[in-house]
């Protein structure tokens, strides 16, 4: 089977896997854009909306959890064609394979040669160039187990415009300006009241 046919078949199964499995296949491979660190740590109940700024370079943490009672022996991630892979963090215990698509761009990332034990999790890190369009993109990902079975996941990231300028978030600038504008008449009233009080005091003297 040629590489592109494999990608097509994999993509097809990824798309229908939520319906085959009877529930959305989210969560056991998850993306964490803007990741800086060694291992991803997620708090219980923490709400996670993976977002990254369009047309920028970003480090994505890929969290792989093993919730089966078999070892995970291989992890595969396919980048959407709108993204460009720049680098992959070296993982001493894992072997890395990068496979190109039919245009020659490396989009298929494979880690094997080590294991993720049942109940354990592993963090992989890739650096990629985000696309120029605002959209929600799915990274088709496969988790292969010691007995040859696999689970297919579709972790996603929303690529959005920047929400900052000069380090300040737009919401801060907008709300801050509103507060200042509405405070000014109140300041004027206060100054007026102070002035009138001063005048009355002056008159009484």
């Amino acid at each position: 089977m040629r590489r592109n046919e494999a990608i097509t078949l994999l993509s097809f199964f990824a798309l229908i896997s939520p319906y085959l499995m009877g529930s959305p296949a989210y969560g056991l491979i998850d993306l964490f854009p803007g990741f800086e660190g060694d291992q991803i740590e997620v708090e219980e109940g923490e709400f996670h909306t993976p977002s990254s700024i369009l047309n920028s370079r970003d480090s994505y943490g890929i969290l792989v959890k093993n919730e089966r009672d078999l070892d995970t022996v291989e992890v595969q991630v396919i980048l959407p064609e709108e993204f460009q892979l720049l680098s992959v963090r070296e993982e001493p215990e894992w072997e890395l394979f990068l496979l190109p698509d039919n245009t020659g761009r490396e989009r298929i990332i494979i880690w094997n040669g080590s294991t993720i034990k049942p109940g354990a999790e592993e963090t992989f890190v890739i650096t990629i160039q985000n696309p120029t369009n605002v959209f929600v993109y799915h990274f088709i990902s496969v988790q292969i187990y010691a007995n040859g079975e696999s689970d297919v996941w579709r972790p996603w990231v929303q690529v959005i415009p920047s929400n900052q300028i000069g380090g300040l978030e737009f919401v801060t600038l907008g709300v801050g300006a509103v507060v200042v504008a509405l405070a000014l008449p109140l300041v004027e009233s206060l100054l007026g009241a102070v002035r009138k009080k001063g005048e009355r005091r002056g008159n009484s003297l």
Partner: protein
Amino acid sequence: MPHGLPEILSYGILFVFSLGLVFHWSRRAFRHPLPTEAFRGDVENGKTMFDKVQRLFHWSTTLAYILVVVTGVALYDPVAFEPITNALAIPLHGSFPSYVFWHIVGSAALAILIAIHIVWDVGKLKGFRLMWPVKADIREQIIRAKGLLSGSRDIPRTNKYDNFMKFFHLTLTIAFMALAATGIYQLLFAAWWTVPIELHFEVEPFWRPTIIHDLFGFTLIALVIGHTYFALLPVNRPILGAMVKGHLSPDEIKKRYKPEAFTKKVESERQEA
């Protein structure tokens, strides 16, 4: 949210509008311009500026509007709203349908109030002409804009509703109609809050009602911020008082209004008697 209006535009509208208000304050706060043209005529007693129905409509609309804006901003930018919901210990993420429900309740209340307002102010009081902009308003607007930029203290006397109030009212009307149309469309055909976030783009039609809704929503917020700013200015305190108590004193009328400004009101008061 990814499929809504970019934040640089939504919060940019608020930022630019507020800067305009700050500029206005800087030009007027210490000059306190008032009409220098003499008041021709006599005003013995105060006038009813706003009757009971109008005042009740105004403050009820304020409450409904606050509900709509609070729930709307929470839906638009839940991440920015998190500190508020965390502080109040109320759910946010995963509870969007509840926020949409209260957003619709507030919007429906606004629609009913506006219907009452139209029946009363247009049907009963025949006050349409008081609020509809005319050519003289544009001339007056230019004079006042020039005065603002030059720092002149001389401004013309106004009718009951000056040109800025009329254009504010007109823009409110347009914004509300656009919000109603795009909101109803989303509710019936593009209910993005009922699907996972990664599918939001797929329920949105090509003409992007969410973006139009956000644009007019933030324009409406900016307009009401401007309205609130002018209401809080010390020079307008008597008008704010009239929106609570109903009446304007003879001194205030002589300070800024044309003698014929309250003619319509006098006529309607005569009819009621």
